[in-house]
């Protein structure tokens, strides 16, 4: 096993062989299904198969300095199809990125800024923590801030960074607050104390930052009395479901599509307004391919009178990633500069080809990614991008003025 310049290759390989999942990555038989499944593989110097090959050969310096190290967008296609169940997306890539940063190699500049924002401000956008509740200003339903008024609730809702700060997603946050209130759910939020869950930091190898967030969040969660956590962000769902327990932080968590599915019978009579639209649903990678939760989002859309649901050619476990996962949200420039393409541009064209006039999403990253993609592919005005929450709220006549 070759030692490498600047760090101990044998030590790294040993670390890689004992990853958290308990599945050593080196049972690889080089079948290449991972590389063939990877939507960015053709642009990578080291697509997944070659990545493992080089890691097995101890050629870590090549991997740690290659731009391809920062091109995986955690779509889980490789992990899903690997016949040996090797956890490339969740284990091998983050471990190599961590090793790269520990060896002094710099991640792409946009990602550095995001990491620093999370470390300093607790949110990916670099916004003031004190303004985290701006989304709820003048909202017409009561928002219980548990950090100021702690009391038992059924649902601790982690609003998330984008729905808290980003105007496009604030609309979705307000609609979800109205829906939960309409359903009579006992819910509360952490207000200005809420912090990023940290999935993208962990997936991009910032293990220390993720650990810091786990410690901070665990302390806040443990101060509250709640039945379960509900999140809008599928990445936060994945992190709380799978990565937090590694730090002995166990919390029952649901993505909002799973949560609302339990209220389908209650929702049915509340769908009072038709929404005339041909809708196709984009399966996000964390809730979809990784957790195989394909039906609840579709069942929710089918509740809405007027909605005609159609499927894209690539759906469910074959869904094409939006390209924003696990930190990819900040890496478009790096990926394109290194020969990759914006997956969201391709995805909106698939939606249009399916005959849809509305692309339904269930992830805060996707609204802006797909709306941008519609603009650059000539689909602006022809393809709307709506979160499932927005469509439900419209049919429930919950009065979001800017939602129409």
């Amino acid at each position, binding site marked *: 096993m070759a030692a490498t310049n600047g760090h101990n290759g044998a030590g790294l390989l040993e670390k890689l062989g004992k990853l958290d999942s308990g599945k050593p990555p080196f049972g690889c038989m080089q079948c290449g299904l991972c590389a063939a499944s990877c939507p960015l593989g053709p642009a990578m110097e080291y697509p997944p198969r070659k990545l493992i090959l080089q890691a097995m050969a101890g050629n870590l310096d090549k991997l740690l300095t290659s731009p391809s190290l920062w091109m995986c967008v955690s779509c889980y296609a490789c992990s899903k199809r690997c016949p040996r169940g090797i956890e490339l997306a969740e284990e091998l890539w983050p471990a190599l990125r961590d090793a790269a*940063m*520990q060896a002094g190699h710099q991640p792409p500049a946009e990602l*550095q800024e995001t990491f*620093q924002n999370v470390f300093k401000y607790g949110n990916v956008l670099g916004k*003031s923590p004190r303004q985290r509740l701006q989304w709820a200003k003048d909202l017409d339903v009561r928002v219980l801030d548990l950090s100021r008024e702690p009391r038992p609730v059924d649902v601790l809702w982690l609003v998330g960074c984008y729905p808290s700060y980003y105007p496009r997603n604030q609309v979705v946050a307000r609609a979800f607050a109205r829906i939960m209130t309409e359903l009579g759910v006992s819910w509360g939020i952490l207000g200005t104390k809420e912090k990023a869950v940290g999935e993208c930091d962990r997936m991009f190898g910032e293990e*220390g*930052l993720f*650990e810091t967030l786990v410690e901070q969040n665990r302390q806040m969660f443990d101060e509250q009395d709640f039945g379960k956590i509900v999140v809008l962000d599928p990445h936060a769902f994945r992190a709380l479901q799978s990565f937090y327990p590694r730090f002995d932080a166990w919390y029952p968590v649901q993505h909002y599509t799973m949560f609302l599915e339990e209220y389908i019978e209650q929702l049915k009579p509340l769908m009072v307004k038709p929404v005339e639209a041909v809708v196709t649903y984009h399966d996000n990678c964390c809730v979809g391919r990784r957790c195989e939760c394909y039906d609840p989002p579709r069942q929710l859309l089918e509740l809405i009178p007027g909605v005609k649901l159609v499927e894209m050619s690539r759906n469910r476990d074959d869904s094409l990633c939006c390209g924003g996962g696990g930190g990819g949200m900040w890496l478009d420039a790096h990926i394109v500069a290194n020969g990759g393409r914006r997956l969201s541009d391709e995805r909106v064209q698939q939606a249009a080809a399916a005959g849809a006039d509305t692309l339904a999403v269930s992830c805060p990253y996707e609204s802006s990614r797909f709306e941008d993609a519609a603009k650059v592919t000539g689909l602006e005005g022809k393809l709307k991008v709506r979160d499932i929450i927005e469509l439900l709220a419209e049919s429930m006549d919950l009065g979001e003025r800017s939602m129409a």
Partner: protein
Amino acid sequence: MNIVVVVRQVPDLIEPLEIVPSGDALDLDAASFILNESDDHALEQALLLKESGGGSVTVVAIDFGDVDNTLYTAAAKGADRIVKIACDGDTPPAARDSAAVYAEAIKPLRAELVLVGVQAHDELDGGLSPFLAAALELPYVGVIRGVKAGDAPGTVAACKEFPGAVMARMNVKLPAVLGILGADQPPRYVPVSRIRGAMKTTQFEESAATLAAGELLLSVSRLYPPAPATRAEMLSGSEEEIAGRIAEILAEKGLVK
């Protein structure tokens, strides 16, 4: 080379700045603080010089704001020593008064090269770096955009940018103070695990220097947001009418005869 870097905390402008009721200071409870950007470049430049030519980097800071996180980050990046100056007052004094304290802290360190950011957005009486050079009685060059080891021993080669994108490369005899505008590369990212490690292992040294208890050279009597001035006059009409009105205004103001 024994390099000393001064790092300062400045108000973080992601928060709206608020003024205390007495009207002469920022409301520190409503403010948060970050590392001054050009000081971050000064630290990066020091680390690059150390990595290319050996030596040590000592970081000196007044104990104020979020300085501990800044200092742990500096240690994680590769700073060898961290020296803190106690701050009993609400805020560190303005540049000229601060320079005397930094100089007192730096003199015992026997620095060959002192690097400090050339600007900070809360400076009241000019840049710290030339005041510091004067207090240390050392030569000074400011607005530096990169430093390399010099051709001769005991020198460095500093790049200075002049207006019109004219760059000068000058050999600076050490010891000296350089006011850094930008390092040879952007400040490096250091993984948080390293910072967490530094939090466990880094020992801060307390400087014997103290902030002057006596009367300061500069104190703030009133702090206030810019008052709205007279509203702009919007001109309308044909091009000739607008041009004529502009000519009248210039004449009224005495700007043209």
